[in-house]
């Protein structure tokens, strides 16, 4: 049997706490990675998966420490005499924008580890750097060597980071969420690169990720972690298609799939009756204020948004973020806006919300001009349109009590007759989103990310909106929490007939949520169709491309049967 690239035996990592039992971040985890094997460690935030990776690199945050257990790389223990970071272990971090030093050239950053660990000369280092850049697929490597990080795109930077990690021919590559900060198309390239490198160089890869699709596409084996313990381990094909442990089953059930639309996600913690009853009461209130008529609720016509920069010396540069975008949303309809970062989807949503002024075109909400030439946003627009934001940590005011945050729009739009009435409505809203009434007295920091997103939704529902703009409402949440929030939004939509503009980069989430979908690329809508039609028979090349590049959990079965699924 060959020496494993990485062997972890019974690892336990402990964080001592003041006046409390110490917190066990990793408890009795063992795993082994053969050369050429990609082993994924999956789990939700706080599961301890990154702590395992950090233990190998020796970067456990103080005051945590390795309580017991052994780690060996290529058969040798960690340490200055044994396996060393940079020489035997290469590391890829999450964000290529910050993991390269902006003040040094690519050449000096690539060659640094080689000069230090292998003692090679500058010329040898340069030759090897060129070779590495070719190996990771950077075009024109000679020219790029003298470039600075800011002159490369995000995908190229991540390739440079990978090249630097490989520079001393390590036996083990640690990739901690290597593609989370990247767009799908670049993600696909980087994942393929990692797979190829593992195959060609016999490199063991420890892949830490929360994305089950990524695991299904490139990993060979997987460890599922939950609260510091490895609850299940095995080959990807088996674990992802027929999970044994209850937690793995729950986790996989919560992953949105692109191939079929579910009515609801199966989540273990079923919401109590109270939340459903509270939602029905709110829905009953809705019935009275409903508008009749066939006219669309929101109509966006020929929207153009340009951003100008520079211009102090020389002509200003104009960047067209949104280019001739038109769409409409009927009452009770959910329209998805999907595309890669920078495609203009959030800018479009912001124009509708009144946060950005359009350069040309217009938006009408319930017949009233809310954006465009001569638009004076009516007060009513601030009531019937509400927004839920991406980052639950920045969307709640840290200095206000939750109750006041939710009551403010209710009082401002005089939906409640008195303060007492507003307080009662606030409590009903908190119940409707599955939080306790007492939450109103607390501040935002007392809540987890998922609970904050619920508060954000409760705040948005207060003034009884007819259109909810959701800007990536779940992309910073764990899958199980995401499933709960998506279920909540689905329930609200079913019970109140709320229309939504749902912005996301995640096609699987869009598939689960939307009636119709608009695909945006470089500021334009390239395809707009019913969700089922769009996902089953995409017409535009870009849509087809995007949908092919998404890593799918469903592919684990095909991989288990030995078929290749990866296409780039």
């Amino acid at each position, binding site marked *: 049997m060959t020496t494993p690239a990485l062997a972890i035996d019974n690892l336990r990592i402990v964080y001592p706490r003041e006046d409390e039992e110490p917190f066990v971040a990793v408890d009795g985890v063992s795993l082994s990675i053969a050369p050429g094997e990609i082993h994924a460690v999956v789990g939700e935030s706080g599961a301890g998966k990154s702590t395992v990776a950090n233990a190998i690199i020796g970067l456990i945050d103080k005051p945590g420490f390795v309580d017991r257990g052994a780690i060996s790389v290529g058969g040798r223990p960690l340490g200055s005499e044994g396996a060393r970071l940079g020489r035997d272990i290469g590391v890829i971090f999450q964000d290529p924008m910050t993991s390269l030093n902006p003040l040094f050239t690519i050449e000096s950053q690539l060659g640094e580890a080689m000069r230090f660990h292998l003692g090679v000369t500058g010329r040898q280092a340069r030759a090897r750097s060129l070779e590495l850049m070719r190996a990771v697929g950077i075009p024109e490597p000679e020219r790029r060597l003298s470039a600075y990080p800011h002159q490369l795109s995000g995908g190229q930077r991540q390739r440079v980071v990978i090249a630097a990690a490989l520079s001393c021919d390590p036996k083990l590559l640690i990739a901690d969420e290597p593609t989370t900060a990247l767009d799908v198309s670049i993600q696909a390239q980087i994942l393929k690169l990692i797979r190829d490198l593992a195959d060609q160089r016999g490199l063991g890869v420890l892949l830490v990720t929360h994305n089950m699709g990524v695991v299904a596409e490139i990993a060979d084996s997987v460890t599922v972690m939950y609260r510091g313990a490895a609850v299940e381990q095995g080959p990807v094909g088996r674990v992802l298609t027929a999970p044994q442990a209850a937690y793995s089953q729950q986790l996989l059930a919560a992953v949105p799939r692109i191939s079929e639309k579910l009515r609801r996600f199966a989540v273990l913690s079923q919401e109590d009756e109270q939340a459903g009853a509270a939602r029905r009461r709110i829905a009953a209130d809705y019935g009275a204020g409903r508008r009749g008529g066939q006219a669309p609720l929101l109509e966006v016509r020929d929207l153009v948004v340009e951003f100008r920069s520079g211009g102090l010396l020389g002509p200003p540069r104009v960047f067209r973020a949104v280019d001739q975008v038109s769409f409409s949303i009927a009452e009770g309809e959910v329209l998805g806006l999907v595309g890669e970062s920078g495609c203009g989807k959030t800018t479009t949503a912001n124009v509708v919300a009144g946060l950005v002024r359009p350069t040309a075109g217009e938006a009408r909400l319930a017949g009233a001009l809310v954006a465009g030439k001569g638009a004076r946003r009516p007060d009513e627009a601030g009531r019937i349109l509400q927004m839920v934001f991406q980052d639950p940590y920045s969307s709640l005011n840290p200095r206000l009590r939750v109750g006041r945050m939710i009551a403010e*729009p209710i009082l401002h739009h005089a939906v409640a007759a008195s303060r007492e009435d507003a307080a009662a409505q606030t409590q009903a809203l908190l119940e409707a989103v599955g939080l306790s009434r007492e939450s109103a007295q607390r501040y935002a920091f007392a809540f987890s990310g998922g609970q904050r997103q619920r508060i954000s939704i409760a705040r948005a529902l207060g003034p009884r909106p007819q259109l909810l703009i959701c800007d990536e409402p779940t992309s910073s949440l764990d899958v199980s929490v995401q499933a709960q929030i998506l279920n909540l939004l689905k329930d609200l939509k079913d019970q109140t007939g709320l229309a939504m503009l749902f912005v996301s980069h995640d096609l699987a989430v869009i598939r689960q949520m939307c009636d119709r979908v608009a695909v945006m690329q470089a500021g334009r809508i390239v395809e707009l169709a019913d969700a089922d039609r769009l996902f089953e028979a995409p017409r535009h090349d870009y849509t087809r491309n995007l949908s092919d590049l998404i890593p799918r959990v469903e592919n684990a079965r095909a991989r288990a049967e030995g078929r290749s699924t990866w296409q780039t």
Partner: protein
Amino acid sequence: MIGGLRKAPLSVLIAAGLAVTIVLVALAAPLVAPTNPLDLASFNLIDAELPPAWVEGGDPRFLLGSDNQGRDMLSAIIYGARVSILIGGGAVLVAASLGVALGLVAGFVGGRLDALIMRIGDVILSFPTILLALMVAGVARAVIPDASGPKLAPFILIGAIATHEWVQYARTVRAATMVEAQKDYVKAVRVIGLPTRRIMFGHILPNVMSPVLVIATINLAAAVLTEATLSFLGVGMPPTYPSLGTLIRIGNEFVFSGIWWIALFPALALVILVLAVNVVGDWVRDRFNPKLRGRKA
């Protein structure tokens, strides 16, 4: 913050204790001081220039000696500290309110208004504090009759000091406001349609106040010093209503004739007050700076 005081180092505890004692004693001056130095009828020239009680020739009635008018130095210092603290505190209050309001508007509204406010601030900061305060106090005396009288002088001093100090608050608050304005919670209230004034003061203001508190504590000491300097230079409080600075100025004339106590004791009081406030201010700054917080713990 107050709760954190229990874990503060001993030096901070001592400084905080001193500062609180001085402020309390000064504010309660009529109750604490042995005599009333403002009542011209109560002192006698016969008692003038008596040394402190423990020095030969001292009089137990005048613990820290008496000045050239026969005033009890201890009482004069307690009343003087009260004037100094009230003017310093007033200047901080005025400067902070003005600076915070202008900084919020500059940071949130932006554009030309922002440029205008900040350029005025730049110009003001290019003058030394004392020079600007001297100019303001001087102009005020020329324009307003009786400006150097005990009724108006404190307000003129507060204005003169605040004219310079507000810029620091405005800059800090403007920068913090620009960061906060980008956050989603501000977008959320904009979508709701709240008026700008309510967004600025109801939602952003509470989130930009911690640096303001830090600057205010540190500036309190600076403001007390500036007031003392102005009074020392003769444009501050009149001798009939002396602050610590005025007392030092009066004493300064007698230092070389061997009558050292008139200048020394007010100066000591000033040094202790400023030092204590500064030590507490530094500690407050470190507590509010999350980057420094973990370091000493």
